[in-house]
């Protein structure tokens, strides 16, 4: 225990004595926080669409069919009540739910205004805006069809009193009602920065010792492998947790974003996530001889994993093969978790599958790295 503490203490002293590292740890998150708070994405496809159909009519099915064949929406299954919808949003299964009230088709048949609700998750304000405008277009197409149908009926009735019905979608936003894009980006930033900093710090601190030769002194000491591994990861786990708190505070002060869910659930999930990044960092250090190699390998791992984990572009927009790969990326689950906790107040009950995935991936990569991490020179 004392031996591990000694390793941890030394690592923290070294990290904080290095001005570049301090900059990386504390300045980078703040700059990113501000930049990302204002960033937006465009061109959204494959929005996950849930259907809550209390009418179960030809007309309601027709509307859904039009939405799906447009290519902008994917059928994400049915929702049967309020609780079901909330669950679908919090677990990330749906981005959008179409609600057809029981009188939807009756209103159409009577030639009246038929209301339907479009309820958006809203965490991603940009996606929500785009989804609403797509839905408005689909309603226009549906209205054109109804118009044509009724005009021919009108002709048949020789100008009798036929009224033309109209479907009228009413948008509603579930979370993030102010529709700030920062609300979506800031929690994501926690995942981004944690990945970047903990992988880099871990892999570089070990390769730095390889370069300077001090690794030989550690290998030749009676330290056990597991002690070295803990001594080389605990400090960066601590720094990672500090970063999480820093971003939470920054988000609150700069963008006025408060966590809806439980902060301890968030910290616990961050810990699960750190198992993954520290494991990856450790693994990279076992395949790199120099700090430069470690940095390069880290970037090669980090960049694509950020791109395809749904940080800026929704995963559902990507080719199916890429989506499969993304199932192996801890960041994908972590994004769902932190956005869920931050914006929707989701907790264990809903996010446990993602947490479990993080745990399994994390333990696996950590064990793989630990097995490769031998107390020998190669």
């Amino acid at each position: 225990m004392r031996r591990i503490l000694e390793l941890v203490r030394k690592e923290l002293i070294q990290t904080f004595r290095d001005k570049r590292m301090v900059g990386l740890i504390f300045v980078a998150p703040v700059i990113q926080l501000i930049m990302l708070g204002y960033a937006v994405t465009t061109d959204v496809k494959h929005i996950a669409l849930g259907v809550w159909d209390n009418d179960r009519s030809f007309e309601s099915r027709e509307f859904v069919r039009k939405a799906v064949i447009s290519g902008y929406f994917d059928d994400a299954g049915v929702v049967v009540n309020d609780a079901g919808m909330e669950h679908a949003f919090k677990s990330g299964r749906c981005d959008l739910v179409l609600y057809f009230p029981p009188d939807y088709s009756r209103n159409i048949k009577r030639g009246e205004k038929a209301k339907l609700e479009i309820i958006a998750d809203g965490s991603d304000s940009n996606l929500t805006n785009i989804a609403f405008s797509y839905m408005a277009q689909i309603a226009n197409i549906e209205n054109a069809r109804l118009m044509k149908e009724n005009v021919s009926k009108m002709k048949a009735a020789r100008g009798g009193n036929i009224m033309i019905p109209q479907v009228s979608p009413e948008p509603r936003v579930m979370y993030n009602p102010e529709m700030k894009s920062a609300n979506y980006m800031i929690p994501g930033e926690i995942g981004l920065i944690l990945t970047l900093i903990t992988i880099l710090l871990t892999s570089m601190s070990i390769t730095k010792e390889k370069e300077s030769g001090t690794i030989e002194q550690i290998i030749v000491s009676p330290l056990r492998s597991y002690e070295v591994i803990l001594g080389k990861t605990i400090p960066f786990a601590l720094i990672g947790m500090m970063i999480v708190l820093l971003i939470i505070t920054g988000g609150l002060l700069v963008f006025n974003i408060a966590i809806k869910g439980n902060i301890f659930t968030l910290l616990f999930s961050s810990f699960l996530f750190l198992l993954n990044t520290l494991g990856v960092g450790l693994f990279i250090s076992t395949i790199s001889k120099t700090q430069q190699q470690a940095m390069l390998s880290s970037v090669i791992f980090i960049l694509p994993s950020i791109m395809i984990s749904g940080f800026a572009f929704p995963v559902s927009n990507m080719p199916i093969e890429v989506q499969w790969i993304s199932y192996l990326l801890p960041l994908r689950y972590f994004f769902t978790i932190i956005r869920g906790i931050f914006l929707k107040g989701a907790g264990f009950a809903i996010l446990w599958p993602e947490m479990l995935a993080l745990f399994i991936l994390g333990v696996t990569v950590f064990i793989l790295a630990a097995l490769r991490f031998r107390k020998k020179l190669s």
Partner: protein
Amino acid sequence: MQMSVQVNNLVKRFGSFPAVDDISFSVAKGEIFGFIGPNGAGKSTTIRMLCGILDQTSGVGTVEGFSIKTEPEKIKSVIGYMSQKFSLYDDLTVEENINFYGGIHGLSRDETKTRRSWILEMAGLRGKESNMTGALSGGWRQRLSLGCAIIHGPKVVFLDEPTAGVDPISRREFWLLIRGLAKAGTTIFVTTHYMDEVEFCDRIAMIYRGKIVAMGTSAELKTANKVDNLEMLFVNLIRGME
């Protein structure tokens, strides 16, 4: 005589290249054994195998009775190792380095404290406890590095080119320290490429291209080969191999 280090037919190949090529020797307890050879001869590779941090290709070796192949962790608890580059953390202070090495060798806080003042005294670093190690000059770094390597009072000490790049006065002082350690019963295995340091060793082995080309006390080597200069002997032996 009790043997502290014993090596038989030790081989290390990197790929097909034999860095250490079938060497055998032994070192008695309390002896200063010098391993002399030019750069690339295989000195560091030998030392690393003996310290249990590099796997050998074949052959057997024991340190304090523990096998380098099957009991490297046991070896680690009885040896001290000072690696080629004076492995110290440049971004830690003198005191932080000492504390760290004490800590990873399992010394308690009190033990570390006692040893710390001994090391500071020995290395002449009193008053420089909070200096950054990276800013120390060669001689100080060398002695601090030695201090850290023996902080836990090991039975055998492996020193890999401890005098390389250090001024002549510091080298002399260093050898006096080493002799003192050996007198107190510590076995010393030391590598060097300075021929004049042979005089400080009880016994030496000359190594070239992974092979031991001559071994014995300085006097033995001189009489056996009828030379009065070991440097000449080494040059001749190497010529003979070409």
